[in-house]
């Protein structure tokens, strides 16, 4: 009973987290390429 709400909740949050995480990785990768290695502080 009420499984539809449970599945919808877990799916929306799961997909939302995944989309945000992937956007962070992709944005970070794109930006890091534009910064010289010696100026990439905080990246390791």
């Amino acid at each position, binding site marked *: 009973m009420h499984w539809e709400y*449970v599945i919808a909740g*877990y799916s929306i949050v799961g997909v939302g987290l995944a989309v945000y995480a992937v956007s*962070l990785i992709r*944005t970070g990768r794109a930006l*890091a390429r534009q910064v010289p290695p010696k*100026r*990439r502080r*905080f*990246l390791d």
Partner: protein
Amino acid sequence: MTISDSSSGAGTEAQDSAPQNAAPDGASTGDSTPANTGSRGTRRLGVAALLATAALLLFGLVLSPPEASQAEAVRLFYLHLPSVAVAYLGFFITMVASIIYLRKGSLFWDLVAGSAAEIGVVFSAFMLISGSLWGRPTWGVYWVWDPRLTSTTVMVVMYIGYLAVRRLELPPEVRSRRAAVLGIVSFLNVIVVRYSVKWWRGVHQGETVGLDTQMDGLQLFSFFVGLVAFMLIFAWMLIHRFRISWLRHEIDEQALAQALAERRAETNATGLLGRKN
């Protein structure tokens, strides 16, 4: 040093501009520093977060028993309350980092404040969505203008406003100071949200997990698994988001230095021509 999270340019815009120090496919550039925001620490954190998330799915959806009155809908609790906790944590970090920024003027804390606020807003969205979906089977409606829900909505709007202030076209120091003040003031609303169920009467339940919690052992354990999973995800996201802000700042500094150099060269050339004439 420019004290600001210059987040006016989106990642894609930054990608479009000519990458003068480009490294192929975002891999290492020969230097030990990676051309991405990942590191050994974040990779370990990511693996731990994935394992904890798998455990949350196992306990939250399979192993924990349904509740007597809410039946299966109680499983949304393992998602909803950890989202609340992480959103509050994000906003708390924003407040603390904003105070430190105003005292020290440190770019580091300014970027931490902005990064934590953005992730706090993301988890607030999950909190509202999971709460609405939980409300439908338990209250009979997805949404009601209850004191807790109303104050939560105001809180989210305030933090979206905070993120908007960070994107204003203002001198970086002014923008960061205004954002810091808003980051501190906005946290007052988090306190209002927290105590709204005690101060005003509404449909939202009071404290769910406390010293006198009457929950089944496995249900309580599932909640803690969810809390650990979301905390690990939050930490992973905060580190990556901070590094993105830092990289944007560096790119802005580079662009400014380049523009100044071009201007200087232009002025020198004009001066030489003037002297020749």
